[in-house]
Every structure is written in C-alpha cells, then in structure tokens.
C-alpha cells in the first residue's frame, strides 16, 4: 500500500504530539497525583431519602475534623440544597447522589466534575482556589464569590435549568 510522503509526515507529527501529551498526563498523574477521581460506593437510589446521610435534613455543608464535607442530591430537575457555602483553601469533600437518573456535576471555576450515577455515591476531594473562582464567579457584598454548580449530563427536558449556587468564602 503506497502512502504519500506528506501523509506519512503528518502522521508522524500527529503521533509525536499525542506521545508528548500522553507523556505529560502520565507524568502529572504519577508525580503530582493528578488523575480523575475514582470512588465506588453503592447506595439504594429509591431509598435515598431514608438513608441517614442523604436524608434532606442532613444535606448541605458540615465540618468534620479538618475537612469540610458537602452532601448534595441531584434529581430532575433540581439540586438539593440549592445553595451551599464552601471555604476556599480548605480541603473539601463533595459527596453527591442521584435520586433518579444519570446526572453530571461541574462547579465553575474548579476542576470538580463527575458523573452522578444512580445507585452510587460520587465523591471528590479537592481544595478550591479563591482566585480561580473569582475570575468566573459573581462577587458578593460580603467578600464571597458565587459560582454555579450545574448538571452537565443530559437528564431530560429540564436539564438546562438544573443548577445550584456555590458560595465560596475566602480563607
């Protein structure tokens, strides 16, 4: 099979670029622990409201030791609670569960992004940078910044309206 020399050159350039990119991603994964969150924890979706953790009165933000834990439930087409307050510069754990179908979750100004799969609890650990959220969020009178937390996995006809507010307070 004859391949035109120009095609071969483009192919090698593309292969080299992909190799460099994969190398950099592998390096940051190994040396800096930058990798997609991985957490497997099952939960019964239909009985979410009856669990101790995801019952409505337990949702929201709580400080547990040195960590701030936020618990949310996503359901068509709202996020409960509709607003949470998180501190910047502090290790936070965000735990999300779905009450019905597959949802996705992204917090603007951060790298928090995960699927929220029915039957499982999604958990992400991170630290929010106040400078990063300040660039994309709305500044409030009390010095905090509000950014959206939105569903980024199509879940039905009201998907575009499914979002919540995250108020980030400076450290």
């Amino acid at each position, binding site marked *: 099979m004859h391949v035109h020399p120009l095609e071969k050159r483009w192919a090698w350039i593309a292969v080299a670029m992909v190799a460099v990119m994969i190398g*950099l991603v592998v390096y940051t994964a190994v040396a800096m*622990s930058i990798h997609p969150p991985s957490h497997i924890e099952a939960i019964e979706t239909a009985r979410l409201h009856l669990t101790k953790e995801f019952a409505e009165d337990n949702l929201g933000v709580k400080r547990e030791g040195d960590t701030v834990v936020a618990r949310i439930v996503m359901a068509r087409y709202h996020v409960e609670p509709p607003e949470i307050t998180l501190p910047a510069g502090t290790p936070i754990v965000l735990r999300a569960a779905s009450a019905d179908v597959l949802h996705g979750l992204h917090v603007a*100004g951060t790298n928090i992004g995960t699927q929220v799969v029915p039957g499982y609890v999604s958990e992400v*650990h991170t630290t929010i940078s106040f400078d*990063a959220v300040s660039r994309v969020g709305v500044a409030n009178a009390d010095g905090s910044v509000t950014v959206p937390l939105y569903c980024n996995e199509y879940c039905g006809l009201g998907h575009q309206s499914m979002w919540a507010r995250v108020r980030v307070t400076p450290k």
Partner: protein
Amino acid sequence: MAQPTPEERARMADVPRGTWALMGIIGLLLLAGWILLYFGRFLPLGPVR
C-alpha cells in the same frame, strides 16, 4: 488500481521543501496550545481526587 512506477514514485517523493517547516510549525503551535491550556488553565484549578 495500478502501482505507481519508479518515476512516478520519485516525482511524488519530491515534495516542496517548505512543507516540513510548515507542518512542524503547525504541530508545535498545536502542542504549545495544549500545554498552555493544560498547565496554565487546568492544573492551577487544583487537583481533584
């Protein structure tokens, strides 16, 4: 389809010299853009585990 003759192969191999430079520049620009976005935008937002 018939295989190209040696003369045709020679003619096809004789590509413009500037092509390597052009392809290299474009490749480097794409790679630089990727690196800038990865290290300049993505990583500064903090690791998520």
